[in-house]
């Protein structure tokens, strides 16, 4: 996803002189080409995320579209108040980019697990996007650059590859139905979309269940119509996110259902139920450890499709 992001960022910079990029001293091996091509539109703010976000706001208020970039929680939680008071309140064109959603940097430990960002950023009422594949990452980069104001883009190490179809248009806030089906709906956000797709395949081949798979790349503003359709038309909803269970995608989906008075037949959230992880390991290991892998999704989907609430 990192390459997809930088590739599209370069194209955007070619087309629009306002595009500007600030890093918090990270991006080794990824941003060199951008720096070489656009030296006057690149700034390394140093290891100082609060200042980076304030700078980005000031530069954006003078007429530029500024991307801030760092890993994990550094461009979001570390400087949360600058995101809230400076960038978001002023409607500054600051596009916050975090590489390393969820357990992308699983082996690096708790400090590098980005597992609360979606809940926190959507609470700021800014577009909050977690692409599920490389195509979505590139398209989201461009789409967010064109939306006025502050936005959040969460990039993942894992990806569902390239799920874009020829001629398909990406719209922030509009989910994508990647598989059609009525037995159960799997709604995923972020790179864990690959788990949802793998689970859907196993449900079909091993259990005779046809799952609808929805890539909910935008957690805020969320695509209420797709959620309500899933609740009305399918056997139930399983939400999948590499994120705390408190306040992220699953919560947002439940809010829509409750607000609209449309209850899915059954509902289950695949998410991080534990607090912080002191265990380290690869992203796939940690997904398995915390029951967020395809096996867990298949088990939840089978029960949901039978109308059985899965015990939390």
């Amino acid at each position: 996803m990192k390459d997809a992001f930088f590739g599209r960022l370069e194209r955007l910079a070619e087309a629009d002189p306002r595009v500007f990029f600030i890093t918090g001293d990270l991006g080794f091996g990824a941003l060199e080409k951008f720096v070489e091509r656009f030296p006057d539109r690149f700034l390394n703010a140093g290891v100082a995320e609060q200042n980076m976000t304030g700078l980005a706001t000031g530069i954006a208020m003078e007429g530029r579209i500024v991307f801030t970039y760092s890993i994990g929680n550094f461009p979001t939680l570390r400087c949360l108040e600058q995101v809230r008071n400076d960038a978001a309140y002023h409607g500054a064109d600051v596009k916050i980019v975090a590489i390393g959603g969820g357990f992308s940097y699983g082996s690096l430990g708790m400090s590098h697990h980005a597992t609360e960002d979606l809940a926190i950023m959507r609470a700021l009422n800014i577009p909050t996007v977690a692409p599920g594949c490389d195509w979505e990452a590139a398209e989201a980069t461009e789409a967010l650059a064109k939306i006025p104001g502050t936005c959040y883009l969460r990039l993942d190490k894992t990806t569902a590859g390239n799920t874009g179809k020829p001629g398909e248009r990406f719209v922030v806030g509009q989910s994508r139905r990647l598989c059609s089906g009525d037995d159960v709906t799997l709604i995923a956000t972020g790179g864990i979309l690959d788990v949802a797709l793998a689970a859907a395949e196993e449900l079909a081949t091993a259990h005779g269940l046809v799952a609808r798979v929805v890539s909910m790349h935008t957690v805020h503003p969320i695509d209420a119509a797709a959620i309500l359709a899933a609740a009305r038309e399918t056997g139930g909803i399983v939400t999948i996110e590499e994120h705390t269970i408190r306040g992220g995608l699953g919560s947002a989906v439940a809010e829509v259902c409750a607000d609209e008075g449309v209850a899915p037949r059954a509902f289950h959230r695949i998410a991080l139920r534990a607090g912080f992880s002191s265990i380290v390991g690869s992203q796939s290991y940690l997904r398995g450890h915390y029951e967020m892998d395809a096996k867990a999704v298949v088990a939840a989907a089978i029960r949901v499709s039978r109308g059985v609430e899965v015990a939390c």
Partner: protein
Amino acid sequence: MASEAPDAGQVDTREMAKRIRLDALRMTSAGGSSHIGSVMSMADILAVLYGGALRVDPSNPTWPDRDRFILSKGHAGAGVYAALAEAGFFPVEKLTTHCGDGSDLSGHVSHRGVPGVEFSTGSLGHGLSVAAGMAYAAALDKRAHRVVVLLSDGECDEGSNWEAILFAGHHKLGGLLAIVDYNKIQSLRSVEDTLTLEPFADKWRAFGWDVVEIDGHDHDAIRSATATVQPRGAPRCVIAHTVKGKGVSFMEGSVLWHYRTARGEELAAAEKELAGA
């Protein structure tokens, strides 16, 4: 080519400072809000800035070539609202709504609905980074306007300021002017007894800034210290030695008036002193 600022005329900045103090006193009294001591200490600085030192146009608050001014010590927002009203950005009558129900004149300075407010603050340690960003953009675009930011001394406890000070020094943001209202008193006690800033000027210098120290109530000194522009040189820091509560004898140098609201006899006594000044 930068267009010319309208002629500010000969503003009597001493008279303007008096009006800022009186306005803010009445605003905080009527609104039941705090921080009058913090407004009093910086009133002379605001009067000099809005009395002509800043290139701004009250009839066109978003004039592209204006000097940008950010109050980073947002808790003293009443002073900026008063200065803007006195400078003609909006009617002085609007000040009476300060901190009232439904008002957009919040206790901590906010830009929405208030012509002339460049940036909203209130949480300390935010203004300097944003100002540095504005100055960085101005340098990129080879534009001549300045970015002026006013900080409090207590605010310099915030680490984010030192990130910005490091950045502006490194990038030689000569279009950036930081003024510190060094009134020596913060929320609970003196600066010296909380977290000493001394040797304060040396700290800024060590980070690559051009530093001058002045009496923050001497209008000529303020005018002179804020006039220098070095587009490709070091950013400038003006350490303005001030007195908290300046202008009202029983408020001067007192921690109490960081939070206390003047009412009744205290209000009348303060008004009398200021009006007679």
